Structure formats: structure tokens, C-alpha cells
């Protein structure tokens, strides 16, 4: 005799919970040390970096500057808020997959507050209440499940990533509840909104990105070390780093006095 539908879905839910708990029980992957860079394919990564810098110089930088000049700041902020708000459901899905239920609650609450009192996400009253986005992605979910960082990868236009996070990005696009909730043409508006948000970010971080891309001795190496440090910091999720103490440096002669210069 077939089980009633409600019963079956409950069993499926129970099985999924057991599977998730088992996965999460393996513990997160071990993060590489501070200066460890796993760049397996540096040549093609450098080529992609140069391509991205070219695209930035020719298209993204000028367009974002124009966008910043033409569109007034409150509108840009509003559109940026709306784009961020539409990311919240995806965060919640990942929070649940990571079994970080407090983050899931925080993001859900934020989404509800900003979607209602924030006029569909244009305003951000949640931040004023001190409830910030606990942003995450499927790359982090995989980290929590024990998948290692993999190699450093430079993606076209999107920039620095790792092989694990590249897979994560694809999964995020595929399972994004916001994207799945809308059919065309609304889904195109959502895509447009996130492109706009990207331009706005490029505009706001303008100086910082200019410095990395154009001011450094080797912009590729600088972008790589900045990305990896910041990404590992996100994945550490607040737990301390294994700091290096220069006072007992491997390369130092213990009898040498740095003050005797």
C-alpha cells in the first residue's frame, strides 16, 4: 500500500536532515596557511586576469563611472539594496545546508523586514536595527561539508575565485530561489538588477579596484593574495587565525639584534 503523500514528504525531510547532519558532522575543510597560494594554472589565470583588466579598462570602469554620474546616489543605493535583498533567500538556503540555523533566522528576518518595511528592499531598515546580512554562498557550504579550497582560478569578468568556489557559483545560480520564483520577463529584471548592482559596486570601490589593478608592481599577485586572505577569513567565520610571530621568524638569526642598525 503506497504511503500517503504527506507521510512520504515527511520521511523525505527526515532522510534529508539525517544526510545533512552526517555531512556537517565531517567538519569544515582545513584552511591553507597564511601565505599558501595554490595556483596550479598560473599562466592561463594570468591571461584571464589581463583579459579582465582589459574589459575593465574598456567597458566596466567607464560604464560604472557614467552610471555613478548619471544616476543619483539615493537611486543607486536603493537599487543596490533591492539587489542585495533578492540575494537573501539564497543565503537562507545555504545557511540551512550548513546547519547554521541562527544565520538562517537572521537572514530570513532581514528579508522579511526589508521586503515589507523597506518597500520591497529599496530601503534597508534591517541594517538600521543592527541586523546585517550574514552573507554566504554554496562555496562556503561546500567548505563546511569538508571540501578543500582547490586551486586559484580567475573567472572571466567575475575575477578571482577558487575551483571549489567556481562550482559553488554554478550551484548558487541553479538553486537561487529568487531566480526560480520569477519567469521571464521578470527574471530578466532580476538579472538586470544584479548587473546594475555590480556596476554600482565597481563605482563605489572605484579607487580601491583601480589601485589593485593599475597601481601595483604585479596586480595579478596582489589581487590573488587579497582575494585568498579575505575568502579564508570569511570561511573561518570569526574563529582566530594562526598568526605568524615575526619575533621568532624562521629566517632570523636569533643572535641578531634588529635594533642594532
Amino acid at each position, binding site marked *: 500500500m503506497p504511503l500517503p503523500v504527506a507521510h512520504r514528504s515527511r520521511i523525505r525531510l527526515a532522510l534529508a536532515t539525517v544526510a545533512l547532519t552526517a555531512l556537517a558532522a565531517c567538519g569544515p575543510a582545513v584552511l591553507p596557511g597564511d601565505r599558501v597560494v595554490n595556483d596550479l594554472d598560473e599562466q592561463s589565470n594570468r591571461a584571464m586576469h589581463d583579459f579582465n583588466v582589459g574589459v575593465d579598462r574598456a567597458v566596466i570602469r567607464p560604464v560604472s563611472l557614467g552610471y555613478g554620474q548619471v544616476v543619483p546616489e539615493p537611486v543607486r*543605493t536603493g537599487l543596490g539594496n533591492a539587489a542585495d535583498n533578492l540575494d537573501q533567500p539564497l543565503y537562507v538556503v545555504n545557511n540551512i545546508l550548513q546547519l547554521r540555523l541562527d544565520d538562517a533566522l537572521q537572514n530570513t528576518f532581514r528579508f522579511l523586514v526589508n521586503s515589507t518595511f523597506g518597500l520591497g528592499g529599496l530601503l534597508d531598515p534591517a541594517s538600521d536595527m543592527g541586523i*546585517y546580512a550574514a552573507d554566504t554562498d554554496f562555496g562556503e557550504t561546500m567548505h563546511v561539508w569538508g571540501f578543500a579550497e582547490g586551486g586559484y582560478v580567475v573567472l572571466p569578468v567575475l575575477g578571482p575565485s577558487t575551483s571549489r568556489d567556481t562550482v559553488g557559483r554554478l550551484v548558487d545560480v541553479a538553486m537561487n530561489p529568487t531566480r526560480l520564483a520569477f519567469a521571464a520577463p521578470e527574471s530578466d529584471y532580476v538579472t538586470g538588477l544584479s548587473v546594475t548592482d555590480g556596476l554600482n559596486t565597481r563605482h563605489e570601490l572605484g579607487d580601491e579596484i583601480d589601485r589593485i589593478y593599475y597601481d*601595483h*608592481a604585479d596586480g595579478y*599577485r596582489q589581487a590573488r593574495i587579497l582575494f585568498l586572505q579575505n575568502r579564508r*577569513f570569511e570561511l573561518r567565520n570569526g574563529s582566530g587565525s594562526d598568526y605568524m610571530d615575526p*619575533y621568532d*621568524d624562521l629566517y632570523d638569526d636569533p643572535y641578531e639584534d634588529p*635594533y642594532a*642598525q
Partner: protein
Amino acid sequence: MRSEPALSRRAFLGLTSAVTASLALPCRVWAMSIDAARTAVSRLVAELYDAINSGGSEVRLYSEFEDLLDRYADMPIIARSVLGVDWRRANDAQRRAFTMAFKGYISRKYGSRFRDLVGGRIEVEGARAIRDFFEVTSVAYLQGEAPFQIVWLISDRSGQARVFNLIIEGINLRTTEAEEVGALLDRHRGDIDAMIADLRAAS
């Protein structure tokens, strides 16, 4: 016959208080240092904000930053650890020149970054001991942005409480600048003098 006790009361008291003192001593020193580390960072942050909000010219701000580095940071140790293995093959004159050039570079680069903090505030949150040094955590609050973490690593192994690394959202000064200095060295095929010359011009 009354026998003399093996341990007189005075000796016993003396010994006990010595033991107690020796037990208490590491704790007391440790607690003082943790406070000293915290206080040093709080003072540094206050002076940093005075400099940022003084509204002075860029050049004046950079020289104020350089002055702050002199008083609060351990520049010799930072410079040495940033240069890493190459410090060993540098001669004394190069080491001195590198430390000076690096200090100027850091005050220009981080001076211009800290300028963006105008109107915001940094709050020192907590401090803890890690091995032989201290980690002081602070949070930067900027208008219209999610707060972000700034961590100061501080050690008194130079004789004074001095900052030897700065970590903003996981990005630490030492590692990042070691990469930059390494790239400059690579560009000049390991020529230390040429790297120093570039560093003097870099911002």
C-alpha cells in the same frame, strides 16, 4: 625538651608568601600586559582619528602617519619580516634604507586608505594573549556600511608595546606587503637597491 620546629613560623610564612607571589606573578604580568596592549591600541586609534579629522593636507596627514608609526609600530621588525628571506642577504645599509623607504610607503598607502574613515569611528572591543603577543580587536563603523573588523597584533618583545601587524577583514599588512615587495624584487631580478628605489616612489 622542646624541639625546635623544622620550619619556624616566620620561615614558613616567608616561604608561603614567596610561593604565592611566584604563582601570582605570571598572572599579574600577563594581566598588566593585556591591559597595556589594549590601552596602546586605544590611544593609537584616538590619535589616528585626531589626524584624520584634523582636515590637514594630504602631505601633512602622511607625515602625521609616519610619526604615529614611529611611536606605535615596530617598523624594524615589520620591515624585516616583510622582506623575509631577502633580509638575510641585504647588507646593513640596504636594511636601513629599506626600513626607511618601507615606512614612508606604508604611511602614504595606509594614510590614504585611513582617510576614507573620516566621519566614522573605530571601537576597541577586546584583547587576548596569543603565545608571546596580544591580539586587540576593534570594529570600524562607517556611514552606510556594514561594520568591519580591524585586528592589531601587538608585542612588547622590543621592550615596549608595539604593533607589528594589522589585519583588516582577514587581509593582513605583512602578507600583503611581502607579496608587493616580492613582486618589486622579481621585477628587478632580485636587485634590492632597485626595489628600494621603486618603493620610495610607490604609494
